[in-house]
């Protein structure tokens, strides 16, 4: 049986890297007595895969992993059993039984939404997460209205010229003054939210150091659109949902 687990990761846990989170969950699944399937061979490992790795320092309320189990009582029981063995800063948000033919979480990822907010104590002007930027909405609109958003990405091999516009699906202010965006998170066109924010700050002529703001992933989406259709982003947890299946 394929199970999709949605979880949140925040607080001190944002400093735990992706590989260590996998180790954390492998141990948690044993503590929770989940009847997970193991691979064959002399060193069997749990059948488990994660959707989209989260960078160190980023918080998330939309993380996903898929596991396969041999037996279970109910999704609710599994959610409770897992939450009973979590540490502060990791929370199981939902557990869904998936159809057998579902694509695995990692291959399904198409987009992710993020919130970027000022960290507490970095700005007197905006104590509640907002940025010290006048007319944020207008400036975001101007930035987003550009036909191309060029970005120079430094990689190990050298520099690469990107156009962020292609993968930047939404960009808008939040009521509290933070910024929300929806970006491509697929393996082929992944855009880091910090790249967008950095680019925006540059175009708006403001200087905000990377240490001053907190990036939070809000949700991870798959694209349910058929070939040729416009994007139809659906949260990964809703894929197995009957309503979506019928549509």
């Amino acid at each position, binding site marked *: 049986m394929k199970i999709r687990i949605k979880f949140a990761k925040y607080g001190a846990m944002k400093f735990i890297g992706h590989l260590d989170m996998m180790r954390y969950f*492998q141990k948690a699944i044993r503590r929770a007595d989940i009847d997970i399937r193991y691979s064959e061979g002399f060193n069997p490992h749990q059948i488990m895969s994660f959707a989209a790795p989260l960078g160190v320092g980023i918080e998330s309320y939309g993380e996903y992993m898929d596991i396969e189990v041999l037996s279970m009582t109910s999704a609710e029981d599994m959610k409770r059993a897992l939450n009973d063995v979590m540490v502060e800063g990791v929370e199981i948000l939902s557990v869904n039984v998936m159809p057998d033919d579902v694509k695995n979480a990692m291959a399904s990822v198409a987009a992710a939404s993020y919130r970027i907010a000022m960290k507490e104590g970095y700005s007197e002007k905006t104590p509640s997460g907002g940025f010290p930027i006048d007319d944020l909405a207008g400036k975001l609109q101007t930035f987003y209205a550009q036909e191309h958003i060029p970005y120079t990405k430094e990689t190990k091999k050298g520099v690469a010229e990107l156009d962020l516009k292609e993968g930047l699906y939404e960009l808008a202010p939040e009521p509290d003054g933070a910024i929300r965006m929806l970006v491509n998170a697929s393996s082929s066109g992944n855009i880091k939210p910090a790249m967008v924010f950095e680019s925006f700050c540059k175009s708006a002529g403001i200087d905000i150091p990377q240490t001053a703001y907190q990036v939070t992933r809000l949700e991870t989406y798959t694209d349910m659109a058929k070939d040729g259709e416009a994007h139809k982003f659906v949260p990964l947890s809703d894929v197995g949902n009957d309503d979506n299946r019928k549509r």
Partner: protein
Amino acid sequence: MRKLALRDEILMQVEKPARYIGNEVNSVVKDKAHVEIRFAMCFPDVYEIGMSHLGIQILYSMFNAWADVWCERVYSPWVDLDRIMRQEKIPLFGLESQEPVKDMDFLGITIQYEMCYTNILQILDLAQIPLSAKERGEDAPIVIGGGPCAYNPEPIAEFFDLFYIGEGETQYRRLFDWYLENRRAGGTRLDFLHGAAGIPGIYVPRFYEELYRADGTVQGRRKLYDDVPDRITKELVKDMTAVHYPQKPVVPFIKVTQDRVVLEIQRGCIRGCRFCQAGQLYRPVRERDADKLKEYAKAALQNTGHEEISLSSLSSSDYTQLNELLDFLIEDCDRKHVNISLPSLRIDAFSLDVMSKVQDVKKSSLTFAPEAGSQRLRDVINKGLTEEVILKGAALAFAGGWTRVKLYFMLGLPTETEEDIRGIGELSNKIAAAFFDTVPKDKRVNGKVQIVTSTSFFIPKPFTPFQWAPMCTKEEFIDKAYLTKKGIMEQLNQKSIKYNWHEADASVLEGVFARGDRRVAEVIRKAYERGCLFDSWSEYFHNDVWLECFADCGLDIGFYTTRERADDEIFPWDFIDCGVTREFLLREWNRAKAQTVSPNCKEQCQGCGAGRFGVGICKER
């Protein structure tokens, strides 16, 4: 949610921030308003090393089971964070509360190896606690030292308020109760220490003076209070089955050295190898009941989710209920997909059978520790392992499919000759030959056998028969390593043998600390002030700085290392009674020089002195 001691931008720029955030599964957070005693438990090395130590897990679990105590963990900040904490004057903090160590009641430091001594000073310094115990005010935590190096505490005595000599399970409650009583009565720090000196196993160094003769050796000790004890007898657990054992060990987020459940099956060792300090310090051998161990294994695996369990003891093959325990573990762990790791097993038909059940034979290697290259020298060190037994074990293993063998030897053992050293290459060669004799050509995986021969340099340790022995100089060590290498290169099967050796500089320093006296403290402090830290990490070991510090302090390294001690010389650690008597050790030293082996505790009691505790094997006999 807890507020972290380090700001986000600091945690984002240091290596492995998970070392500093706490919050691990089974870590204990209490309401500080409801505890009487705050205890910071420290292993003075990096997190991954410190978190792998069983002793701290035992005491952490035991202390936190007491409602009035909150025990937290502290490890050495790695060099990157060390620099930031100094620059920004951030006080060292406990991982659980993220609050400064300097505000706690106790700082307990386990001292597992000599090369961590500068790290102890780093801990005190970063915690903003004065380095010298005598300079500490009423508000500073009481700094306690424990672990094997506390059996010769003198080189670091001035940095500690007290040492706990022996096994930690027995006297801490009494120490805490006295602390609370003294505090309620409005007593001072000195009052507390004075009273603590009357508790068994507790040594308060400031109440004693070490006196020296003109030749630099110890003349004796002077007590500054009449009512403090002349000798400190080690503490030990009388009933290993009844004593506390952690069933919810802390599970680190990052991979640490010992990333598994550790089951301590017994304490002590019957063998009496003459170079081995642990073999003497933890006498007499005491077993834990197998049924209790089965319960612990089940509970700890359930509570941690670890995928591996390991047995811990000095010589697991000597555990009398090994068969029963392993049968249970193999069945139970297989069902749960848990691996079993089996260190310190003697290689014979039984252990090979067990190992083939729990390990991938093709991938694992076998370990032998002959320690010396010739039978003559193995008799000197009382290592009851013969060439015949090694070759028989190796042949059995090769027949069973193993192709990798690790061999451990020591160089610089007392009475060692060139012939003994050549024996290392010869024995390695014979083991390789055993492979080619045992395994027919068409059955050889890749056609090869891999022998990895490693040597370390012998360092005489207190409370061993070799505490009188001279240690080699650095130059002698290096010559011996070259001779070993040459001996291996001359062998027929040399292509199957890989040789590793240790660096000699750090071994010399370890030799000074191991048998040092109070005068060595000045060198340690100076070296720390000049930047020495993480001396056990070769990339951070600065031998030139250490040599400079010895010269500046006017101390001669050779006095502590290469000098042969007279039979009646008073040693700096003689005031500690570890159970084993000096008479026994001297007897063993003389037997060593006569190349006479001594039977182990099971074969025949040697009257070592530990029998007076009336426990374990001494009671059974």
